[in-house]
């Protein structure tokens, strides 16, 4: 059982907490909030830069997690699962706060001339590697905001596959879609994100 204020957890601790969570045990849930709440608050603060919004996002994340507790797979780590739910809650809040609507995914796909042989706009290399660029706070913020603009069904797949590291089958089970739909959405989400972050990545390159 997790102790008050404890912030580190082992896989065995997490399995025990996950069992309690799936069973709907309120004491287990309180332990989960104590164990992971602070870390999730740090995540939402980093995305939102506003204490009240960050706290709201953590609360919304835990409510979502509680409602979705039966979807937590036996082999999944509670910490990683909660992390993704908190990131998503914060991104949603970011999108509503900026009053931005989601983008139309088709407009962000690579555009070709009629023969499909040439890109409409020539591609410009990004000089800096992603890890260097995203090491800067403003670029990291730009990338997170771009993710927040993706349509929900694409953003969820991107978060689960690329951020949370779940495999295609697990993602498909949790979202109630086919593995092929997960692959297609992931590919389109990545291409859309590439298009959204390109201006920032090219700006750094100049």
């Amino acid at each position, binding site marked *: 059982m997790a102790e008050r204020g404890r*912030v*580190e957890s082992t896989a065995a601790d997490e399995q025990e907490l996950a069992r309690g969570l799936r069973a*709907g045990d*309120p004491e287990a*849930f*309180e332990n989960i*909030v*104590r164990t992971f*709440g*602070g*870390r999730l*608050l*740090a*995540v939402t603060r*980093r995305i939102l830069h506003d204490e009240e919004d960050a*706290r709201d996002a*953590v*609360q919304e994340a*835990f*409510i979502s997690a*509680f*409602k979705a507790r039966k979807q937590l797979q036996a082999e999944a780590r509670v*910490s*990683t699962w909660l*992390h993704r739910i908190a*990131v998503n809650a914060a991104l949603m809040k970011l999108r509503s706060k900026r009053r931005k609507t989601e983008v139309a995914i088709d407009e962000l*796909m*690579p555009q*070709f001339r009629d*023969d*499909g*042989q*040439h*890109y409409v706009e*020539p*591609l*410009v*290399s*990004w000089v800096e*590697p*992603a*890890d260097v*660029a*995203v*090491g800067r706070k403003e670029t*990291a913020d730009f*990338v*997170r905001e771009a*993710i927040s603009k993706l349509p929900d069904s694409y953003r969820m797949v991107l*978060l689960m596959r*690329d*951020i949370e590291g779940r495999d295609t089958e697990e993602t498909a089970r949790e979202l109630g879609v086919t593995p092929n739909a997960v692959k297609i959405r*992931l*590919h389109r989400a*990545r*291409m859309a*994100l*590439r298009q959204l*972050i390109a201006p920032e*990545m090219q700006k750094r390159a100049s």
Partner: protein
Amino acid sequence: MICREVTEFLIEYEAGSLDPAVLSEFERHLGRCADCRIFIVQYQETIKAGRQACAEQHADAKTEIPEELLRAIMVAIGKVERT
């Protein structure tokens, strides 16, 4: 193979699951198309950028949840349970 097809086959290329005959055409196209080479690098860099921007390791593990937030969450959960 044309550029449009390269972008369509890219996810399978990344997963290493392209049929060998298609892979050979794919790579032949890359050999002569600078735009597609740039596109693939940017696709890979986008995955890294998204992952790093949302990475768990940046979170401050020492942060503790404020007691009033914990209480508010437990009250909210209680309401969810009753509905």
